[in-house]
C-alpha cells in the first residue's frame, strides 16, 4: 500500500478507463476521488456501480460532467441526467439484477469464471446467456466482472491499508476492492495499526494499492 494525494491517484487513471465505484445511492462512495475525476476531466469512462446516485452526489457527478460512456448498474431511476444520457445514446447502459451484479463482481475478485443463478431465468435478462441445468433446475450462467480500477470508500483505514466500513456504507465496497487491477481508497478516518481489531477488518491490507491521505474532507 502506498499513501498518495487524491491528485496523484486520479492522475494514474487514464481517459477511457474502467472503474468500479463503491456506494449505494451515493452512500459509501469515495466523493473526493469523483470530484478529482471531474476536475481532471477524465472522460470516456466505463463505470460499474450499483446505481447512478442523484445529480451532484456520488457517481452522479460523473454524469453531470458527461464523463461516462458506458455504465453497468442495477438501477438508475433517481438520476434524470443519467437517464437522459442513456436515452440519447451518450451512455451505453447495461442494467442487471442487483444480486447478479454483486455475484459477478465477487466472481471477478475470487478467480471464479462465473456463477449459476436462478435470477432472470425466463425473462429478458436471459437473452444471449447460457442456461445450464443442475439437478433439473435451470440457471443462468453469469460471468465474472472486473475493472482496471476500484474506487473504494472505507470508514476506517489503518496505516497498513486494512479497512472497515460503517453501517450501510459497506455495500459493494468490499467486493469491488477484490475485483480490480488497482484499488484506490478514501477513508473517513485513517488510524494507527491495531485500532481495527483483526476480527473487524473487512478488507485486508494486501488488497489496497493506494490510500488517499489529503487531510481535507
Amino acid at each position, binding site marked *: 500500500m502506498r499513501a498518495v494525494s487524491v491528485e496523484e491517484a486520479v492522475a494514474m487513471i487514464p481517459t477511457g478507463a474502467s472503474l468500479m465505484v463503491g456506494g449505494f445511492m451515493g*452512500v459509501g462512495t469515495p466523493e473526493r476521488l469523483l470530484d478529482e475525476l471531474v476536475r481532471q476531466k477524465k472522460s470516456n469512462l466505463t463505470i460499474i456501480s450499483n446505481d447512478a446516485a*442523484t445529480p451532484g452526489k456520488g457517481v452522479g457527478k460523473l454524469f453531470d460532467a458527461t464523463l461516462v460512456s458506458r455504465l453497468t448498474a442495477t*438501477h438508475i431511476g433517481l438520476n434524470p441526467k443519467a437517464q437522459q444520457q442513456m436515452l440519447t445514446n451518450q451512455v451505453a447502459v447495461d442494467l442487471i439484477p442487483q*444480486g447478479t451484479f454483486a455475484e459477478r463482481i465477487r466472481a471477478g475478485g475470487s478467480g471464479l469464471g462465473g456463477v449459476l443463478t*436462478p435470477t432472470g*431465468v*425466463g425473462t429478458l435478462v436471459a437473452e444471449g446467456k447460457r442456461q445450464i441445468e443442475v439437478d433439473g433446475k435451470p440457471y443462468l450462467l453469469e460471468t465474472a466482472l472486473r475493472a482496471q480500477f476500484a474506487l473504494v470508500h472505507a470508514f476506517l483505514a489503518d496505516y497498513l491499508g486494512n479497512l472497515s466500513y460503517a453501517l*450501510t456504507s*459497506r455495500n459493494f465496497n468490499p467486493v469491488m476492492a477484490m475485483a480490480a487491477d488497482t484499488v484506490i481508497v478514501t477513508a473517513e478516518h485513517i488510524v494507527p495499526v491495531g485500532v481495527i481489531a483483526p476480527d473487524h477488518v473487512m478488507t485486508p491490507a494486501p488488497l489496497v494499492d493506494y490510500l488517499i491521505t489529503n487531510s481535507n474532507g
Partner: protein
Amino acid sequence: MDAQEIIARRVAQELKPGNLVNLGIGIPTLVANYVSPDLKVFFQSENGLIGTGPIPEQGLAHPLLTDAGGRPISALPGASTFDSAMSFALIRGGHVDVTVLGGLQVDAGGHLANWMIPGKMVPGMGGAMDLVAGAKRVIVAMQHAAKGKSKIVKQCNLPLTSSRAVSLVVTDLAVIGFPDGKAALIETAPGVSVGEVMAVTEAELVVGDSVPEMKI
C-alpha cells in the same frame, strides 16, 4: 380506510413471528406500520441491513445509515449490517421469509411483471428479480386496477420479473392465491362482493363456495 391502508393491513397479517421480511418501495413500505413490535419481525434493507427501524428523529439521522433509496433510516437493537453480496445471498438463498413487492401486472399463473414498460424509460430492476427468484414467499401488494384496467390479467404482456410464480396478491379489492398454479379468489375486501371483484378482474378466478371477507 383508503385503498393503500386496506392492502397494507392485510399484508401485515401474513407476517409470522421472527420472519425476515423485505419490503419494496411504494405500498409495501406501508406494511411496516401495521406490524406489532411483539411479532419480532426482522426487516431487511437490501443495501445491507437487517433490523431497520422507523425514520430517525430530526438531528439523529446518520449519513451512513440509509435505506435502499438513500434516505436516512434507523437500526433497532440487534440490527446487523453486511455487504451487498451477503445481502443478496440472504435474498437468493431463501433466507428472506417474505418479500412484499409492488406490481404492474400479475397473471392467472401467478407471474409478476413489475420492472419495465416497453417504450418507456427503463430505470432498472434493482433487487426485484432476485427477490422474486429467491424469497420463500412473494406477496404482491398493489391496486386491483389502474386507469380502469385490471392488473390481474390473463397473461402478462409486460416483461416478466421472474418465471417463478408469486405466492399471494393483495389488492384493495381482494386476496388472490395460486393453489395448483391457478388464480383463486381467497378473500374479498370489506363490503366488496365476489361479483364486484369478478367484474373488474381480467383473469379467470377460481371461486370456492364461500369467500370470506378480509378481517382487518
